[in-house]
């Protein structure tokens, strides 16, 4: 085997030089925060895809202020890159006076903020659209809430000296695509959004390092904006006057500019930015059997709306015929969700369709029907769950 040493070392050097680390350095392999004690297995999550990982949070887990790590959904475009925390660098370049190349320790030294925020995939609820549309068939659980901590993006940009002419950031993820020709994951955000106080480079998720499948060691956090902006395994931030032209930056994640008839092709599209106003029921679950002897039907879930907060959540026990106000728990934090609870009266056995709808601080109300669009984005119709009250 000695004869293999030379090519091995040469090849390793070449790979390191190219930064093309897929499975990462050995030092990081066991230091990563994982979702389950058994690597590669996700007992609490609904598997929508494994190559790459697309894992959905079950509805039952959606009545908590913080979504447990092992139940926090995962959306991935390519295979998870095995970044070594010891050699990881975040580069900020382009229209800046002083390009930065920060190690993880240097980013940690700049950590200054924590934000409670909902992370939701733009395609959450896609499976509910009629006519059906292609894409990962998410139901309710491509969303979760965590406390994200790290440096403010604006502070890093100021440190680098962003030019006044800058208009966009190109955010480069490190996802590894199975085919060399497949577009890499890059997103563009306007400079105004990047300079807002709430935009973070998250290094921590709740009480520990950002987990690997959630983008560790570093991802972008943009409270109120849809998940595809929250670039995972963030490697490079390029400051530019132009939008990045590649597929994920310019073509994907767009909505019809105007209402589109189901099944039709929209004439013009616009980029998706904010999450819509939305309440989701976690209890009861569909098909649950609730004894009439309980005296009331307990409803619980979460509600949120883009970069604003939720003003109220109404709950109905007769599919929207009558509504009552739910109580809201937790802090009134823009970009975060609040747990809602209500107890509905029950007067006898039979099926019950429970509905929930949120109204946000801007006055926007969760619509009865979500606008159909060809890629199934931003489903936020009034949430409905049918259960059975039994004698």
């Amino acid at each position, binding site marked *: 085997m000695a004869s293999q040493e030379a090519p091995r070392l040469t090849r390793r050097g070449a790979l390191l030089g190219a930064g093309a680390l897929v499975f*990462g350095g050995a030092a990081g392999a066991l230091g990563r925060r994982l979702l389950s004690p058994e690597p590669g297995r996700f007992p609490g999550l609904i598997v929508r895809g494994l190559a790459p990982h697309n894992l959905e949070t079950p509805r039952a887990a959606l009545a908590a202020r913080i979504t447990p790590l092992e139940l926090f959904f995962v959306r991935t475009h390519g295979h998870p890159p095995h970044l070594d925390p010891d050699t990881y660098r975040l580069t900020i370049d382009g229209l800046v006076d002083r390009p930065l190349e920060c190690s993880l320790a240097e980013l940690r030294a700049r950590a200054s903020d924590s934000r409670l925020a909902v992370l939701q995939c733009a395609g959450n609820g896609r499976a509910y659209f009629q006519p059906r549309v292609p894409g990962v068939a998410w139901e309710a659980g491509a969303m979760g809430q965590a406390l994200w901590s790290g440096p403010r993006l604006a502070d890093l940009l100021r440190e680098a000296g962003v030019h006044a002419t800058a208009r966009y950031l190109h955010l480069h993820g490190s996802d590894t695509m199975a085919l060399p020709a497949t577009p890499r994951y890059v997103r563009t955000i306007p400079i105004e959004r990047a300079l807002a106080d709430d935009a973070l480079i998250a290094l921590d998720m709740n009480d520990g390092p950002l987990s690997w499948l959630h983008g560790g060691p570093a991802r972008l956090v943009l409270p109120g904006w849809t998940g595809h902006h929250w670039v995972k395994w963030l490697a490079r931030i390029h400051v530019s006057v132009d939008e990045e032209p590649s597929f994920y930056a310019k073509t994907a994640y767009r909505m019809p500019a105007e209402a589109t008839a189901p099944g039709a092709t929209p004439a013009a599209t616009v980029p998706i930015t904010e999450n819509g106003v939305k309440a989701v029921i976690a209890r009861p679950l569909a098909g649950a059997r609730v004894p009439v002897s309980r005296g009331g039907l307990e409803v619980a879930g979460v509600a949120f709306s883009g970069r604003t907060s939720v003003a109220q959540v109404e709950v109905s026990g007769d599919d929207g015929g009558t509504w009552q106000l739910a109580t809201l728990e937790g802090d009134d934090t823009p970009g975060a969700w609040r747990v809602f609870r209500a107890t509905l009266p029950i007067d006898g056995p039979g099926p019950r369709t429970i509905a929930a709808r949120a109204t946000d601080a801007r006055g926007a109300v969760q619509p009865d029907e979500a606008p159909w669009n060809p890629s199934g984005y931003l489903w936020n119709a009034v949430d409905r769950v049918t259960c059975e009250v039994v004698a």
Partner: protein
Amino acid sequence: MKLALLGLAALGAALGALLVPPQARVEVEPVAPPPSTQRPFDDPGLPALLRESSPARAVFERHCLLCHGLPIVAGQRLTPAQWRAEVARMRDKFHAPLVAGGDDEAVIVDLLARAFPIELPPAPASYMTVPTGPLPEPGYPALTAAVPDGDAERGALAYAFGCSSCHGKDGLGGALGPRLRLRPALADQASFRRIVAEGLRSMPALPGVHEADTLDILAFLRAPG
């Protein structure tokens, strides 16, 4: 030499053994392959069209499953026109190696439109979970001829995320990739690394895999099961 090796590699897995230098071969007692615990095509929730092996399914596997895995495909309910548009999108936007209007594309669209039509009820949430059934009893002898300088424990982790979606848990074989335990290619670091870096048959080349990780994975696959 490299071109010659590449050419041989493309001929198939069976020829892989020929690439191993004779002095590096390891004698291994034949062991009957264990029943795999991760064969999504056996899922009773799948349409018969996909549960049964067929030339069309082979085309589908070769072109679609390398990037997607089965669950995301099985979760779709689309019209034939939508399936046609999706396959064309994979070709045009994601550069899947399909020829526009070619036979393979037509075979894939036909298979998927029949297997997952718009009328089919949605897949239940529990449809495609990672199997958690018991693993076969241990019984894999370690290969003892030459100990790779990787770390089997680290390799288990790297394998779980990088390889298991195709090759199954613990290298026992999966829906897409064959069993890896006791393969001749494991006897030799060079041929193992070459397969990872350059691909073999339907396995894509993974030139970005870190050298150290490749050796860790090899150590894991050679460790007693």
